[in-house]
């Protein structure tokens, strides 16, 4: 089936430029037939790329090592689930996934968009096909997933051990869905600029895609953080790693966009800002892909240096130059007539929030690319660490949480100071009470940033909850229905608004979790023998015994730890270190397990109040003489005999364990990070969910007759 896959890719390479040309002719001549050809090329592109995806997926599942990409990213010992998802751990597979997702989302977008905004959708089709052309060309010319090996190996290298984590297999499709979905508002923004239709129509046509992009990217980032916490073995969920940052950048500018478009929809303001934001977000989405795939910056997620850097940079440069040129060309049309009436209004809060979010994105962009910037400027590559990022992002994040609470209290147009003070009094009192209570807790007192974040977070949650209750009370009074029914009615009638409010609550909860877990955690690195006890954060950790276990895939050495507090048992944790074999015939049958990659399986006890996190680093040096002896005596052992030897090593480690190094962490409110993230995702889903038609029907019926009469006047 390799021929079929390769032919599908080649057909895609023919289709994409043909589609760009057809869509271009459609735009130039305003000819609906050529525009329809462009759209159909996009649908066909999705079809043929689906064929390529299926063929490659089948090759991974069948362990067809005649394909280089399968031989280097899978093996017969790789579990079936990971074989099915190993495709996107490779350069070639992930690029194919990228362009396949792009073609799929783009097909949906132009299918709905061409009916609503035909001129804009015609141009967007051309832009989306140009994106697809770039990625298909990369696939065919530089990273062909169907490249075959002259001599297929009997066994593959296997999936990178760090990626053998269930969430990690969903993480790339989520992240790439986010990136590719952002290209849709980008393309429609370009379409609006080219066609000169700069009202809010293009925003309406792509709103759901923008929201879905935000949701998918956020979900991807959250999964990545969870993977980092429970798999990477360093004891954190966010390391300001370039690839993590690259995913956060379009998410931040996208968040700003989702807020500021409401000002354009309602007031016709901020056209330049909105189009600028969406163009920046689309370009940042490509930049994120570039960072992962090029290896230009050192990262745990980067997949080594590749030949893709130059084409990516050229493509990004083209996007920046083209976007800037178009905005400048349309500056007269983009100018808005009105202005914001009052600083005490929802639109003003949105604008300030936008500035904060873009400020955050700028800080993160600067810190991420500082190594490259410094190299260009001074010839020396210097980088900035977490303290640098935190110095600037913490105050901006606190202010953003504050606005997440303040925004819902504000009406559009203008709020009177007296009414705003009344609405904000209770949330402010709750925030002050929270701050007062926290001041009594000594560890929190010495971390003012954490204290401020938690207090402001309490304000935001209280403001949103009270706002929702007030709306429900008004509806209950008007309809004569009970509060729960009224509450459901209020949310159901305006899912976009209350979905957004739920996102604000989740954001506040997430940042409270981040503030508490990063400022108030206790970390201890210790070296223990079985029977030894170490204290950390008020808990006692006893190293009970060593563990050792061999499978065909890896050798796991670990420990059983008993965690107690004040003599009371809290948890039994079993952190391990997995050693994976490297396929190198020069190494002995056991030594190859200790010369390959090793990953941590964290011992984790999660709770609402705190997480207890442990990782172990067994001292394998103590096993070296034994390993050398076995390898000398049985240099050709394989299969069952090799497994027998590994069992012997595991047994030896269990019975005579050397001291092992442990990292012990007690981190408060980590669960709040995941809970907050999930609440945010639930809010986005609520906002995405289409309003039921009866609501719209009722809304239409509620239009005063006078309004319709005025419409006819």
């Amino acid at each position, binding site marked *: 089936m390799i021929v079929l896959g390769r032919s599908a890719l080649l057909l895609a390479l023919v289709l994409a430029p043909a589609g760009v040309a057809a869509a271009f002719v459609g735009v130039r001549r305003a000819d609906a*037939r050529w525009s329809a050809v462009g759209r159909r090329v996009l649908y066909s592109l999705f079809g043929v790329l689906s064929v390529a995806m299926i063929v490659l997926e089948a090759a991974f599942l069948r362990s067809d090592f005649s394909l280089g990409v399968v031989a280097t990213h899978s093996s017969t010992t790789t579990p079936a689930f990971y074989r099915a998802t190993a495709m996107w751990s490779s350069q070639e597979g992930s690029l194919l996934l990228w362009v396949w997702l792009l073609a799929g989302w783009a097909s949906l977008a132009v299918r709905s968009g061409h009916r609503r905004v035909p001129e804009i959708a015609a141009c967007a089709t051309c832009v989306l096909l140009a994106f697809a052309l770039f990625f298909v060309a990369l696939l065919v010319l530089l990273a062909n997933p169907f490249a075959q090996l002259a001599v297929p190996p009997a066994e593959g290298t296997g999936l990178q051990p760090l990626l053998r984590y269930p969430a990690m297999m969903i993480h790339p499709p989520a992240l790439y869905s986010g990136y590719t979905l952002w290209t849709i508002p980008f393309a429609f923004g370009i379409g609006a600029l080219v066609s000169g239709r700069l009202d809010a129509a293009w925003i309406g046509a792509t709103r759901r895609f923008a929201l879905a992009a935000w949701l998918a990217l956020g979900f991807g980032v959250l999964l990545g953080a969870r993977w980092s916490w429970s798999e990477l073995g360093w004891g954190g969920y966010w390391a300001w790693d370039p690839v993590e940052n690259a995913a956060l950048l379009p998410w931040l500018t996208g968040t700003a966009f989702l807020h500021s478009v409401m000002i354009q929809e309602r007031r016709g303001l901020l056209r330049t800002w909105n189009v600028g934001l969406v163009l920046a977000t689309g370009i940042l989405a490509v930049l994120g892909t570039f960072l992962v795939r090029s290896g230009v910056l050192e990262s745990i997620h980067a997949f080594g240096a590749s030949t893709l850097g130059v084409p990516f940079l050229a493509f990004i440069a083209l996007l920046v130059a083209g976007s800037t040129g178009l905005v400048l060309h349309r500056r007269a049309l983009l100018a808005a007539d009105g202005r914001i009436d009052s600083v005490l209004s929802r639109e003003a809060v949105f604008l300030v929030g936008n500035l904060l979010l873009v400020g955050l994105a700028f800080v993160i962009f600067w810190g991420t690319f500082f190594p490259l910037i410094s190299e260009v400027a001074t010839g020396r590559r210097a980088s900035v660490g977490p303290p640098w990022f935190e110095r600037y992002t913490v105050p901006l994040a606190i202010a953003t949480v504050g606005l997440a609470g303040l925004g819902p209290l504000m009406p559009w147009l203008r709020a009177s100071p007296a009414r705003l003070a009344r609405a904000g009094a209770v949330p402010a009192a709750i925030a002050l009470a929270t701050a007062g209570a926290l001041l009594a807790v000594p560890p929190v007192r010495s971390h003012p940033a954490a204290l401020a974040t938690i207090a402001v977070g309490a304000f935001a949650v209280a403001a949103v909850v009270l706002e929702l209750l007030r709306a429900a009370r008004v509806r209950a009074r008007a309809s004569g229905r009970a509060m729960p029914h009224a509450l459901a009615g209020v949310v159901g009638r305006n899912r976009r608004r209350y979905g957004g409010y739920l996102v604000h609550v989740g954001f506040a909860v997430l940042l409270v979790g981040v503030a508490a877990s990063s400022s108030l955690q206790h970390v201890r690195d210790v070296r223990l023998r079985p029977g030894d006890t170490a204290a950390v954060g008020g808990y006692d950790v006893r190293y009970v015994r060593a563990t050792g276990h061999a499978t065909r895939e890896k050798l796991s050495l670990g420990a059983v730890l008993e965690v107690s507090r004040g003599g009371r048992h809290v948890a039994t944790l079993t952190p391990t270190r997995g050693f994976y074999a490297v396929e190198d015939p020069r190494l002995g049958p056991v030594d190859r397990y200790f010369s390959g990659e090793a990953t941590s399986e964290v011992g984790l006890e999660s709770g609402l109040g705190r997480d207890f996190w442990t990782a172990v680093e067994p001292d394998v040096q103590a096993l070296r003489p034994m390993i050398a002896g076995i390898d000398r005596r049985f240099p050709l052992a394989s299969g069952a005999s090799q497994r027998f030897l590994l069992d012997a090593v595991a047994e030896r480690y269990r019975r005579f364990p050397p001291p092992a190094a442990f990292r012990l962490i007690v981190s408060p409110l980590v669960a709040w990070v995941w809970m907050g993230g999930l609440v945010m995702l639930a809010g986005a889903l609520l906002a995405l969910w289409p309003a039921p038609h009866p609501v719209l029907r009722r809304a239409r019926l509620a239009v005063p007759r006078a309004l319709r009469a*005025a419409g006819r006047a």
Partner: protein
Amino acid sequence: VRPEGHDVELLLVCAMVALVAGFVTRPLRAPAPGSASGRLRALEDARDAKLREIRDAELDLRMGKLEPADHRVLDARLRAEAAALLRRLDAAREEART
């Protein structure tokens, strides 16, 4: 010697190319479709959004977030915009009928 299944694969490739070629070029062989229904839908969506804004403003007033005078200004503005949308919608419907 050709590998087993090679012919089937070539057949599948030919079928894929033929299918795509037929599908893609179809609009050139058929009259251009009208887009009036799409424009109507876009206008209806815009009208619904504007009606939601009017309803939101009323809710803000009843919740005590807006001064009555400010609500009157906002409501008048929104209703003028809604009226303009209704005019465009009626014109588009008329155009679609003719």
